[in-house]
């Protein structure tokens, strides 16, 4: 039940973000799907007691792989899909907690939380990068025999 709730909300949230970024109408549902799959993987990983950082890394990686597939299938720039897919993974809650602790003068906790938020952002970046590199390698090896 809780999973269903998470899937539905992440789908709607990602599609709504596609709309805010003015993504083409025919891609809105795909944006939602990319976001939902990314969030599902993140939740599944954290429920298997994986830390938030590797979970984010895996989710960002999968989001980019699916975005690449969609981009190729629908001949649309990849950024249309990957942006909406990445949004749910952004560590907004952690960044907020960090700031709240700064305001309350708990600098030690704030620094810990901020570093964690930063690491998660880094994990998103590496996930994006990693799948991109693999995609480039596949494309290059496809071109060679021809």
């Amino acid at each position, binding site marked *: 039940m809780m999973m269903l*709730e*998470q899937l539905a*909300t*992440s789908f*709607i*949230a990602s599609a*709504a*973000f*596609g*709309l*805010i*970024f*003015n*993504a*083409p109408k025919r*891609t809105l549902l795909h944006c939602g799907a990319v976001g939902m799959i990314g*969030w599902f993987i993140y939740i599944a990983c954290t429920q298997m007691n994986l830390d938030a950082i590797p979970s984010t890394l895996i989710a960002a990686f999968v989001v980019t792989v699916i975005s690449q597939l969609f981009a190729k299938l629908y*001949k*649309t*720039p990849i*950024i*249309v899909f*990957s*942006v*909406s897919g*990445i*949004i*749910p993974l*952004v560590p*907004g*809650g952690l*960044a*907020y*907690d960090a*700031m*709240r602790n*700064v*305001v309350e003068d708990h600098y030690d906790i704030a620094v810990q939380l901020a570093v964690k938020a930063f690491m998660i*952002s880094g994990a*998103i*970046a590496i996930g*994006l*990068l990693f799948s*991109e*590199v693999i995609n480039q390698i596949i494309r290059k090896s496809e071109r060679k025999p021809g």
Partner: protein
Amino acid sequence: MSQSMINSHEITQICLLAGKIILQNGGETYRVEDTMVRIAAAYGIENSHSFVTPTGIIFAIDGSSQMTKLIRINERSTNLLKVSLVNDISRQISTGKLPAGEAHRMLQELDTQAFTYPSWLKIVAAAIASSCFLIMFQGSWRDALPVMLAGGIGFAFFLQLHRVVPIKFFAEFITALLIGTLSVFFVHKGFGTDLDKIIIGSVMPLVPGLPITAAVRDLMAGHLVSGLSKGAEAFLTAFAIGAGIAAVLSFY
């Protein structure tokens, strides 16, 4: 000779226009360069060079009819529909189906038209997205309505304010102040329960998702200047939101 001058002049114009539209609407820098070089190659100019930063494009053609042009980009917004439409046009050009005059006309038309969803629809989307994020961050359904209100009002306010105040970071800061105040007000009146979750949810529509993604993609494509400056943009936005919320929390 003069014929080829006219020709390369028009091709330069087409390339710059295509690049300008992509850059102004949130496309990645490497896509801009790629598109311009591809269009030039499709029209028979093999030696073209482009240098793109988030604030300007320099495009040069080598050979018998040399030409260098510069375009300054002052305003940037997010419109992925336009990016993908230019992408479609550039695909058609690459296959050789589109003559230069026709392509130029199509791009000019694309440049002048807005192609956006109506503002009210975006505001509704922001409101719904806010409450969805509340649930995703393990908030309770009881807070869904206050988050929807705070997120929707905040986003509407941001759109209006950004029209009046051209400095984006200031607009984001003020919006964050408003969202924080609204959330505190809701909780104070007993309308909402969990202040933290309400603020996080309603701030989400302002999160700089596009600059983050574009910055990473630019950095790894080797466009260090654009990647770093887009990263700085994302960081400043995050900072503006954080500072606005922090200001409210410190008074509360």
